[in-house]
């Protein structure tokens, strides 16, 4: 998948986003939720900071939506605490929590107009009519729906409905806005543009967003930090570039983007891994593991070079035969079978560069990568 260039990704985290205790908004401690025998959320702890755009990313069924529903109060945890602004939310029913949720289905009230949908939450607060009308009008203008206020949800397009759902939550000025797969129902073109609108809105309003998604490029684009979830647990919590460049486990490395893994043992100099399918592999920085312990060398496909002749460097190269070529337009993915029968994926940008070298299927090629390219994983 990734069309994200890994090497020179600008860090998005705004400089004001400190992660100290003072800016901690939401604290989740040892949270567990079981449905019968199934553990949806498993002793999960997480801090979310004021003003951040946090993405919960994971395969379907990993518990990310359940976590969101626990924060909103629609599910009650079996164990653990959720603390918002220093207040334990356990005794607070959903309608009293200062968080709002945008549902995957949008859950717009079909019998109410767009305006009435957006005003619904403010009316519950018992605000004066004039203020409600003003805030609703401002919010509809912000999401560019001012001309559709008197329509019913059934008379709107999917993209417009999505905006109404967003406006209905935002107008409440929640301490935390929870978004459950907010873009999943949109078609690809609209999804791409809406991602950036979502980021702009979040920055403009200075709110804290927690988004749930199974789409990793979505998480990478919108989020300041990503929490990668699997089977009810957080596997890694870090900025998008860090998750991609320095995954902490084979699972995360494999889940985010594409990866080639070579298993071997740490060399005595701690700067090499021996006995892999590609022989002895060198790395640039000392490995933080005892010699002889098993580790995995992980290399992203776009970090692997493809050449007809053996590269001049004696290490980090292996020969193989091309089995398949996936043409994606901007780049091509080459599947190369190496001596031990395993496949290595190499992504080559179709820039007309690479010396005009574009090998065909069944051709023999050399694969190589720089010692700086791989990630060493110990689990």
């Amino acid at each position, binding site marked *: 998948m990734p069309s994200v260039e890994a090497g020179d990704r600008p860090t998005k985290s705004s400089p004001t986003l400190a992660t100290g205790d003072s800016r901690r908004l939401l604290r989740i401690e040892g949270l567990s939720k079981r449905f019968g025998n199934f553990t949806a959320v498993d002793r999960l702890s997480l801090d979310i900071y004021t003003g951040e755009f946090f993405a919960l990313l994971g395969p379907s069924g990993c518990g990310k939506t359940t976590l969101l529903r626990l924060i909103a109060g629609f599910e009650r945890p079996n164990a653990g605490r959720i603390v918002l602004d220093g207040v334990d939310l356990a005794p607070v029913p959903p309608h009293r929590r200062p968080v*709002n*949720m945008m*549902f995957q289905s949008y859950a717009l009230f*079909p019998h109410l107009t767009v305006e009435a949908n957006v005003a*619904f*939450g403010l009316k519950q607060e018992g605000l004066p009519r004039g203020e409600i009308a003003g805030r609703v009008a401002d919010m509809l203008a912000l999401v560019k729906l001012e001309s559709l206020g008197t329509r019913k949800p059934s008379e709107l397009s999917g993209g417009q409905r999505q905006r109404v759902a967003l406006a209905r939550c935002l107008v409440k000025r929640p301490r935390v806005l929870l978004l459950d797969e907010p873009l999943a129902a949109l078609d690809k073109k609209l999804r791409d543009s809406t991602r950036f609108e979502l980021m702009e809105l979040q920055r403009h309003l200075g709110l804290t967003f927690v988004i749930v998604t199974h789409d990793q490029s979505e998480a990478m684009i919108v989020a300041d930090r990503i929490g990668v979830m699997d089977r009810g647990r957080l596997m890694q919590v870090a900025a998008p570039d860090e998750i991609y460049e320095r995954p902490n486990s084979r699972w995360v490395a494999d889940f985010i983007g594409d990866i080639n893994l070579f298993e071997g043992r740490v060399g005595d100099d701690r700067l090499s891994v021996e006995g892999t399918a590609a022989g002895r592999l060198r790395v640039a920085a000392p490995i933080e593991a005892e010699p002889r312990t098993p580790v995995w060398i992980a290399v992203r496909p776009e970090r692997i070079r493809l050449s007809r002749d053996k590269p001049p460097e004696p290490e980090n190269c292996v020969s193989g035969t091309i089995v398949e070529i996936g043409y994606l337009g901007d780049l091509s993915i080459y599947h190369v079978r190496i001596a031990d029968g395993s496949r290595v994926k190499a992504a080559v940008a179709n820039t007309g560069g690479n010396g005009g070298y574009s090998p065909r299927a069944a051709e023999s090629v050399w694969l190589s990568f720089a010692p700086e390219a791989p990630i060493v994983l110990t689990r």
Partner: protein
Amino acid sequence: MKNQPGSLWQRFTLAFPYAWLVAFFLVPFLIVLKISFSQGAIALPPYRPVLDLTAGWRGIEMFLAGLSLDNYRLLGSDSLYLLSYLKSLQIAAFSTLILLIIGYPIAYGMARTPRRLQAVLVVLVMLPFWTSFLIRIYAWMNILQRDGPLNELLMALHVVSTPPVWLATDTAIYIGIVYSYLPFMVLPLYAVLEKLDESLLEAAADLGCPRWKTFWLVTIPLSSPGVLAGVLLCLIPIVGEFVIPDLLGGSRAPMIGQTIWMEFFGNKDWPAASAVAVVLVCLLVTPIVLFQHLAMRSEERS
């Protein structure tokens, strides 16, 4: 629907419901309407004039000259008819209200039950239909008797010291009607409540709405098509109900169904019975048509 009825099959499927209505509603109604303008007679059929097409144009002229509004004048002159209409409307309105109050929580509870149990509950609601309606009303006659099970229970529980009279009262009519019509109220309500998207209720809670208010602001408005269907399905047949008031109610203040029966079988006055029936149909159809019209208008405006 934008597609024109093109194929023969499409035309047939469109024409079929209309043909059905013409054959089994419009034609019988026109016959009744015609009889209502006739005069009673000791003959076969027991009214005049009878349309004699063999006499040609003159036959039609004779027939038209024989028609009169006398039966409708009769309805106005005797307060029995007005009182029966009012009693029918009153019983229908109150029992429909009671049905709604009892039926809504039942339907709501059914819709909130785990899905695999819902089918069982639907069958249970319809279970009374497996026994003849008449037998069930006879059972109620037995239950409501002076020394019947209901009074025995009330005496045993010391709720009353002397057995109250149930039969031949309006209370008995209400009991019979509410019991018999409950499935017609519950099923349409269940059908809409079962489809109600639960995330809408969660969204309302999320936006700061407590449960009771969500019920009022979201559940009730969204179930209004079911409420309307249930109310119409109960109200209309109850107005014309004959068996239940005849068996459980008294004879002093008859409902309109009993009045029609009396005219028809007691007095053998087909024209008067027809006039009563025609007025009843107009009484029921006019508000429905009016309501439909208003609903369509407001739909178009939005």
